[in-house]
């Protein structure tokens, strides 16, 4: 999923890019409204994060321009001023959500996941087919970015879903680290050697009954990971 981030502060932009990348999104940033708009038309992102106060064209105008050609793409506003957020709500710009600065990781993740869920479920393919699948006692719904075990619901990222989808599709087989990496991160991404292991470790904490003794994602030393149905 491609996410356009329009934010004039370079550090915030970079931080958001890092965060979204680790969630499994494909982020691209720009520092002003005009480049945001041209990037939007050229790149066709699936989600737009818009800061309101930007040099040149402000966030409101960018959103209005986007809405002229695309009524579907989700737009999330970012602002430091609650007054501006009040305006967003009042202007009926067709914004999907907003994030107040200073924001925490969890808040940004929760809001982006919520918007992603709506986007995935609104896709024509999603309504036609239910792509849910099970891994042992875990039932995974990719369109909902959720997994369920009994009564408990587990929130997952896009990347988590991709990893689980890959392992489930090749159930019983060893999926090599490189293969898993390529499907979940993409070939262009050059992570540190530990990125995958770290991510699997975090994912296990979420989905395994006992992260120290994993049942769903098993490590095959020297080869990769495997799901035994």
């Amino acid at each position, binding site marked *: 999923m491609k996410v356009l981030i329009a934010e004039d502060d370079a550090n915030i932009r970079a*931080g958001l890019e890092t965060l979204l990348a680790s969630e499994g999104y494909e982020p691209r940033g720009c520092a002003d409204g005009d480049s945001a708009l041209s990037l939007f038309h050229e790149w066709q992102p699936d989600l737009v994060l818009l800061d309101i106060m930007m040099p040149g064209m402000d966030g409101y105008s960018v959103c209005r321009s986007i809405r002229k050609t695309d009524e579907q793409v989700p737009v999330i506003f970012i602002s430091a001023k609650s007054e501006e957020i009040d305006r967003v709500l009042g202007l009926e710009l067709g914004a999907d959500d907003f994030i107040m600065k*200073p924001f*925490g990781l969890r808040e940004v993740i929760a809001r982006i996941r919520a918007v992603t869920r709506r986007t995935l479920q609104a896709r024509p393919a999603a309504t036609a087919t239910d792509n849910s699948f099970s891994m042992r006692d875990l039932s995974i719904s990719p369109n909902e970015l959720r997994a369920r075990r009994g009564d408990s619901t587990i929130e997952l990222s896009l990347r988590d879903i991709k990893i689980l989808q890959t392992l489930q599709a090749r159930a019983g087989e060893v999926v090599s680290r490189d293969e898993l990496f390529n499907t979940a991160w993409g070939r262009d991404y050059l992570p540190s050697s530990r990125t995958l292991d770290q991510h699997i*470790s975090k994912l296990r904490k979420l989905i395994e009954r006992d992260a120290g003794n994993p049942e769903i994602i098993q490590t095959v030393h020297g080869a990769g990971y495997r799901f035994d149905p």
Partner: protein
Amino acid sequence: MHHKFKLALLALTLIPVLLAGIFGYQMLLGMQARNQQQLDELISFRLAAIETGLNQTLDDTAQRLLAALPAPISEAALQDFARSRPELSQLLWLDTDGQRRYPPPAANYRNDVTDFLKRSEPLWLGGELLRIANTSKESPVLAPAQRSRSYDTRGASFEDAAAPAATPAPSPAYGWYTWFWGNSMRHLLWQRVDNGVVGLELNAERLKADLIAALPDAGDADDRLVRLYDSRGDVLYEWGGYTIPEGRSPTLSYSLAAPLASWRLDWYSGAQAQTALAQNLLLSGFLLMLLLALGGISAFLLREHQRERRLSEQRVNFVNQVSHELKTPLTNVRLYAELSADQLEAELESDHPVRKFLKIINEESLRLTRLINNVLNYARDQREQLQLQPRPAVPDDIIRGVLDSFRPAFERQGIIVSTDLQASRELRIDPDATEQILVNLLSNIEKYAANGKSAVISSRIDGDTLTIVVEDAGPGIPKAAAGHVFDDFYRVTDRIDEGVSGTGIGLSIARQLARLHSGDLRLLPSASGARFELSLRGAS
């Protein structure tokens, strides 16, 4: 608020002017009525004096004529008398039997005598004049004292004039008889004589001339005009310099008594109109001055108020700007502290000090966020822009969220929070404002009551009212400070070495937000620790 201030100033300017106008006008009316009465009395007095003068003239004429009356009365003597007295028109003599002796019965009379006999027929036919003379009880001179009105300021001449009337005369020796003939009034002076009664008819023109000559000389007094009307309603004479405006009725109309009955004096006064005009002008001038003075004060106050407002707006804008500028670096501190913690999650063992350091950075950035939000809320409140955005929310969820954000800090300080949450129903409230209030209450526990080691939060909903009680086991709030904790910038202790920081606006903002919810934030009496009760009105 600005609008209200303007309205208040307008009211403060207009109400006193209006009241002064109403009272002034009423006073003016009263004064004018009093003046009018005084003027009426004065004019009546003057007119009465004029009447007295006229009567005096009449009486003088009578005395003069009667003194010159020949004695004894004979036809020849009367004829001579008539010729020698130009003020006389005709004479009449009836003897003791009531028989007319003069003008003597004859076959032919001069025209004027024929006319006289014709017009005086009622007097001589059947000896009527003799009967009048014998039965008359009226005093020949009529003093104003006999009229219905009396005056405190009566002059001596009145007393004199009234004196004969006061002394009862059995039957006066002379008197007046007046009657209409043709189109004029005839005056006949009668005198009882040894051989009957003599009647002297006065020359009307001569009498008028005498009476006019007796009128007072009013000079050119231009504040009045007096007119004397005869019985036909013709103006005999007028004096005074006042020009009567079109359609003006006389200030006072005065009917003269007999023998000048049916004569009238009209007094037109210009003074009254001028006085009223002057008073109205004076009142208007006073009101205008008052309006100008109050308007000036109001304008000054308004300008001062606007200046104050502008200054405060500038201050608020500055605070706003600074606060927002702070938010960008703060976002970065928080974002990167969390990203670092996230990144190191897998790499560092759980008791690695760097984890703790990052946690502290994160907590402090949260604290800084709260402080900035407080300042911003305060600034918004100063600009009267603080507005609620009520939407359905479960109060207990808000409480749990706030507690979660404080958990790390409370854990580090060893504060154990117990809860009794019974507000699990959705209520239309502003969740952000509610959160802000709770954050401020919990911040206070973190800052001031950490050594109490425990806190209790309870919630309940009664009807549309949400009540949340937050109490701690800290040192509590001294009685002297209890009344001030909600004041702006008030702090229980300002000592820097206390090691506790704060801006002193947290509770003030919390209460403002509660009151915007038609609720309140109160400090409840408590044996130990501080106990705050928050009540919010929402809609189910």
